[in-house]
Every structure is written in C-alpha cells, then in structure tokens.
C-alpha cells in the first residue's frame, strides 16, 4: 500500500499537471490554473520537433543498450578467463567508472575530447577538430560516455551469473571443442537468460532516460538542438521555458513508451516458452 502510494502519487501528479495550463505564473500564484484536457498532448504531437527528438532518442538509446551489453558481456567472460590480479584490476577500474558521478564523468570525457586542450586530438593528430559540432560525432561521444559509465553494472551482474554456472558444464563444452563464442552462444547465454533480461530492461530504461550526459556534453542539446533527447527536451519545455504542463505531457508519453517496451519484451520472452 505504501509502495503503491509512493509509485502512484508522483505519476498521478504528472498526469494531472499534463492536462492543465500550468506555467510559472500558475505555480507561483500569479494567475489561476485552467483545465486544458488533452490540449497539451495535441500541441506536443503536432510539434515536428517532438517526433524528431523521439526518433533520435529511440535510435540513440538502442545504440547505447546494444553497445553496453556487448561490452559488459564480453568483459564478464574475459573476467572468468584471466588470473586473479588482472581480474582485480579490471574489477576496480570498472567499479571506479561505475562510482563516478555522471556529471563528473561527462565533464572529464568532454575535456579528453576538447578541441583545443584535449589529449585525444593530440594523440590522434586531429588538430583542433571539434567533436561536439557534428550531430553524429556529438552523439557518438555521448554514447562512449554512457557505455563507459553503465557497462560495469552489466559486467558485474553477468560475471556473478557466470560464476553460478556449474564448472562441469563449461568444462564439458570446452572438451567438446566449442569455441569461446560458441560456449557463450549455446551454453552461457541460455543459462543466463533471466540475468540478461534484467540487465537489458535496466539498460533500456536508463539509456532512454539519459539526461546528464547530453545536457553536460552537448551544452544542453547541441548546436541548434541537434542532440536533444526526450528527457532534455522535456526539461527545456518544463523548466527553461516554464511550460510545466507541456513538460509533464512529455513525461507521461515517455512513461507509456517505457512501459510498452518492457511489456512487449516480456511478452516476447514468454512466447518463446521460457519462464523467467
């Protein structure tokens, strides 16, 4: 009941605000609040920029999820194959990345790729190439940071899962002459399915809601807003322009999309005959 209250009340408020005309003047009591019905939603859906940002968010989040899972799983397998000392070193490095606050990580990555002072340009001999100017290179830079700060979760979780797999199974597969990839594909992945489901859903939710990295690294959405994602767009509408009701409507749309993605994903898994 308490849990329900904690979950439902903020969502209820979000939904409520999204059907009113609710800007700064209403919040601070300068003007009365008026009921708008679905006016905010129709304004949102008729805004071309919203669809553009939605598409960019979906593609960007998908790229982040795939990259994070690939890097995390590969390193988890690697962890099981190396000796104690390098394993400890890799673990510590990953935990360091994980523990770094997003805003610090973003600032450091931005500095590494800085046009004038960044070491990356110096090492690669790129002169004063600006990584944040082009749309794709800016997204790519943010993707690197997102993967960097979220792969440790995948790696640690999957590593724990692999350790729980009986050693005999892996030994038998190795004796049968299976390659590393083959072992992953046919033995580990099916056995780790519940863990992989959890980390995938986690990553989808995280990466769809990415905010700090985009906000810090592209200066609030990039040149002429080319690197906006939904969360930053909602922030722009809700706080920078103080159209709270429009921001709330974006929030509700995001919530529905994420719930839909999660439900579809779970349904697909069920249909394949696997119980979670």
């Amino acid at each position, binding site marked *: 009941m308490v849990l329900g209250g904690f979950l439902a009340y903020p969502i*209820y408020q979000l939904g*409520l605000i999204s059907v009113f005309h609710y*800007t*700064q003047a209403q*919040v601070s009591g300068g003007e009365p609040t008026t009921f708008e019905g679905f006016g905010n939603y129709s304004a949102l859906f008729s805004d071309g920029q919203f669809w553009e940002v939605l598409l960019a968010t979906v593609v960007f989040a998908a790229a982040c999820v795939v990259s994070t899972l690939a890097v995390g799983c590969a390193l988890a397998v690697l962890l099981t194959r190396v000796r104690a000392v390098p394993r400890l070193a890799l673990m510590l490095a990953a935990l360091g990345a994980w523990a770094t606050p997003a805003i610090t990580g973003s600032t450091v990555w931005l500095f590494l790729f800085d046009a004038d002072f960044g070491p990356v340009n110096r090492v690669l001999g790129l002169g*004063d190439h600006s990584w944040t100017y082009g749309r794709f290179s800016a997204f790519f830079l943010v993707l690197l940071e997102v993967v960097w700060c979220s792969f440790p979760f995948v790696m640690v979780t999957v590593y724990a899962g692999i350790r729980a797999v009986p050693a005999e199974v892996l030994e038998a597969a190795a004796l049968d002459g299976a390659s590393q990839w083959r072992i992953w594909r046919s033995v580990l992945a099916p056995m780790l399915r519940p863990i992989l489901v959890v980390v995938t859903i986690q990553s989808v939710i995280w990466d769809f809601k990415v905010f700090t990295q985009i906000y810090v690294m592209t200066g609030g959405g990039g*040149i002429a807003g080319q690197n906006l994602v939904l969360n930053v767009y909602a922030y722009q509408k809700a706080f920078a322009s103080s159209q709270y009701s429009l921001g709330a409507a974006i929030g509700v749309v995001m919530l*529905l999309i994420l719930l839909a993605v999660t439900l579809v994903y779970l349904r697909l898994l069920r249909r394949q005959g696997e119980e979670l």
Partner: protein
Amino acid sequence: MKLSVRMVAVAAVLATAACAPQTSGNSSSDKDEKTGTLRVWLFQEVNNKPKEEVVDSVLAEFETAHEGTDVTVEYIPVETRAQRIKAAFNDPKSAPDLVEYGNTDTAGYVKDGGLADVTEEFAAWDEAKDTDPTARQSVTVGGKIYGVPYFVGVRALYYRTDVFEELGLDVPKTQAELISTAKEIRAAKPELYGIAVGGAYTYGAMPFIWAHGGELATGTGGSYAAAIDSAAARKGIEAYTSLFGDDNCPAAKCAAMTGNDTITAFAAGKAAMAIGGDFSHAAVEAGKVKGAYAVVPLPGLKPGSIAPAFAGGNNLGVLRSTTHRTLAVDLMKRLASKKAQGELFEAMGFLPTFSDVRQQVAAKEAFVKPFVETLAADTKFVPASPAWAQIDAGQVLPTMFQEVVSGKKDVATASADAAKKMNDAFGSVG
C-alpha cells in the same frame, strides 16, 4: 504490478481531472520581521572578487545599522539564473529576500507574481530622482515599480591595438569594414579569430539586426508580433552569420559560444576583436591583453554612425514572499545607492544608473567614453513582454543563428521558424 500502476494512474487522472494541481501560496507575506537572517542572491560575474568586496562593505554597514541582523549572500551562475529564481518563486520558504535579476526578465517575473511592488518606497527614496529614465523604465511594469536599477550595461567593439598596428589596419568605421577587417586579420594571423562571435551570443548579434533597420518584434501595449523574419532583419542576420566560418571564426567552435566565451577568448589573446560590454572591462583587464586594446562604439552602416545597442543591465528586487520586507528594501537601497554604484563601477566597470554619478565616473575614467557615447546614440530594448523570458529561455534566437551558421537552414527558413516560435510565445501569454 506494472500494469496495475498504470491503470491506477490513468484512472486517477481521469477520475480527478476536475481538481487542479498545486500552486504555491506565494502571496505577499504579512510578516515583516526586524531581525534575523536576510538571504541575497547576486550574479556570479566572470571576475567576481571585486564585486564581492563592494558588496561586503555595504553589508557590514547594513549589519551595524540594524542590530540583530545577519545577511548571507550567494553568487549564482548567470547561466542557471532562470531555474534558480523560479525555484525561489515556487518555494517561498527557501527563497532569498532580495535578488539581482536581468532587466529583460522584469515583465516575466512580475507576471509570475514573484516580485514585490515597491512603488511607494521608491518614490520616497531621496536618491531615486537622479535615476535615468531608461533605467527607471526597466523596473516599471504597468506603471508600478518592482525594484531598483543596479547598473546599466551596453556593448561596444573591443579591438587589439597591437594587432591593428602590426598589420597597419584602421579601426573599422562601418559594419562592412568591420567584417572585411576581421577576415583580413584572420588571413594574416590564422591563430586569431578576426572578431570573436558566438552563435549563442544574442545581444552581440542584435546590433547587426537593428543597424539594418530590422526589429525583433513590433507592437505596443503588451501585444507583440515577431519581426525577425522581415527583409531588414534578415539582412542583419546575414551580416552577423557571415562572420562564422574558417575565414573569421570557425563555425565548429564559434557556433556554440556565448557572450562570455567571446570575451574569454578576447581576454586570453585569441581574438583581434570582440563585442563586449562595459561590464566586461574588468575581465579583459585581468587577461593577457591588458594594455594592448582599445574600445570604440560598434559601427553602424554609414561611416561614423553607431549601431543601435541593446540597453541591458541588472536590477535588484525584493521577493513578494519575504518575511523581512522593510529590512530587504533598506538593503536593496543601500546596495544600489549612489555611493555603492560608484564603488561597483570602480571595481567592476558597471555603469551607474544615476545620470549624475555616471557623468562623474565618465569624467574620471577614459574607457567609459565609447560606452557613454553608445548610450547617448540609439539604444534598444527587447520586447517588454512576459513572453520574452520564455523566448530567451527557449533559446529561440541562438537556435536560429546556429541553424544558419551550421548550414542546416538558410536565413529565410531559420528566421521564419524563429518568428513562428516567438509568435507562439507572444500568443501564449495573452
């Protein structure tokens, strides 16, 4: 579980659509305590130390004059001022009593119901009679006064005397000369920007639009219509955006720059010219180029003319929610007094809002001359509409300039899109 949450949420929204979301009880407070802590928010400037010293000396006097009071000052970053001040309006309990705010925000903050009406106190203030009329205008909304002017600001052209001498260049007398001189310098010295410009530097770009006879918006009596897509305004946008490119200020770097960034570049010796305010003087003096630069009014189209400048500046205002109204008003008057403004000018180069004090300092300090000249020529203001806060915060004009300089849209399309966004904003505030 997840499904049920959604159902509950949807059901709840539908069931209770008739009741309104919360609004803050930000009515004017009836309390007027004579002791306790006053909280003040001032802006964090590029080189803030001298400002802090001036403020500290005023506070010391204030705390001596009012026993049992304590003042805490917080310097807030200019970039996030909008969020901070709105948060203060929403939550009167953690709000400051006195804030510094940009004079373009006055109309918006008044509509939000955040600022206290101090018309009576202002009229009773003996120093107020010398406040210059444009500064007084910037605290006035609907005939009532919502604060006191803290300083006025106007921009002019900073240029490097050593670079101009070395290349044998004359100081540009027209806008066309300005553009060609910038490109000449860049060609001769590729390590410098000819003139540092920024895609997010709206107030540096406006003189170009105004010089061509364009306007941001036209209208009177609170209702405005965007004019940024008029033929004259477009010529100005074209002139300004022609400065972005490898032949002056590469778009890859300059598109994202703000006004502060261009001044930082100039102060660090990376630009031969920049459009800077009188308020940038201290930051430039603290940089590498100290002693090797001069300032002239930004040229207009005809030789010898001055491009209309944006009459900026900041005000101080008491929040409606303050529980120390009398004290806060007194502190406001002390911070913006003739004496404190004179000291602030000496520390930061911020121009006083009192005509007589301004004349005194102009006689003492030669560097003020181009700015006072610019103020004496045509100055302009942004639309005095609450929608301006929304247009400004929504980055409408920076987006337009960035779209043009990055080649995403041509001037006609970008300015038409910006005009549409501006009209939406004007429409939404009624």
